[in-house]
């Protein structure tokens, strides 16, 4: 069973949004289910800090062995920071997706978009769990 923390929000494309301790600021990464489906992650392509994205825009790609997939922005946001440690250690996306495997830290730029994301229960149903 994939881990689905109850206090995070999710997209149907398997990204999560996790409060980063400051109002309107979040960590974004991919879910435990997604990392399991992808297999061993060997590379994460991330944008430069300062870049802005609309909701569900592609903000980067993740490459597991042989397979490149898009990463979607859960909300409209500005990139504040990228997880630079993933360059040397992309495998942490597999081993700790909700912790050290975060990908970008963002500031949400459009109020109200969080309502369109899935809660843990809805995401669980989306992946056929629960």
């Amino acid at each position, binding site marked *: 069973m994939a881990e689905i923390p109850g206090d995070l929000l999710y997209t149907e494309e398997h990204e999560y949004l996790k409060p980063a301790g400051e109002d309107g600021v979040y960590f974004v990464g991919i879910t435990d289910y997604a990392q399991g*489906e*992808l*297999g*061993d992650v*060997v*590379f994460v*392509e991330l944008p430069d800090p300062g870049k802005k994205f609309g909701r569900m825009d592609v903000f980067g*790609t993740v*490459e*597991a*062995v*042989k*397979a*490149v*997939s*898009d990463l979607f922005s859960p909300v409209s946001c500005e990139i504040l920071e990228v997880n630079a440690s993933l*360059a*040397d*250690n*992309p*495998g942490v996306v597999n081993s700790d997706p909700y912790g050290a495997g975060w990908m970008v830290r963002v500031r949400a730029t459009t109020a109200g978009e969080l309502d369109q994301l899935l809660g843990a229960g809805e995401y669980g149903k989306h992946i056929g769990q629960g």
Partner: protein
Amino acid sequence: MQATPVWRLLVDPPREGAANMAIDEALFEGVQVGGRPVLRLYRWRPPCLSFGRNQPARGRYDPGLAAASGIAIVRRPTGGLAVLHDRELTYAVAVGAGEIGGPRATYLALNRALIRALARLGLPASVAPPRSDRPLPLDRAGGHPCFAEAASGEVAVGRRKLVGSAQRCERRTLLQHGSILLDGDQSAVTRLQTGPGPHPVSDSTTVREALGRLPAAGELEAAIMAGFEQELGIRLEEGPLLTAEAERAARIEEKYRSPEWTWRR
């Protein structure tokens, strides 16, 4: 009774690397907007070195030496590592992510279809077993050749890789293409590398080596068509590249010819 799904089949003449990648991408885009799944079979002329989408290549490969050797260079839209496309047959599949399953399920199903095709020729290939070690991060694997080792689930003869495949997943559509090595070797991938060694060498085999002969013209293509139809429970309908697709591919080809894309990393 459920109707048998009909996929398009394109059997293409040999083309340059940039044109081949552009056509694969145009077909992929067509499926993204609701087109039928496609199987395309093709070859490369002149020989071409392809990099994976995210593979570090700048400063690691020598474009001058490649040009002097008559080898073109292109960067694929899919993942993975460097491949020399010369004496091989390439397959490409563009299919909706729900059609067969997710990326990994599709990967395994297409590899099983290829194994079935090779078995029809009398070539006993199998799926490479899972590896116990983690793959190297791409930035450390860097210039490694794709055929240096068989990853879990790939088509191999014993432990030696015969087919190297890679995927792109976008808007719930998958593009998977891969090289079925017919003859020759992958040593040019290592020869075109610059910088300090040691460069890992390929551990691959070829259809000629594994079968003891080269398939006759069209023989492998026919086996692949039958293997795909049987394994995937589909019917293939052969047809040409549509005019709109060819026009779209011609525009996309500019990207695959540009040094900005080829040497992006």
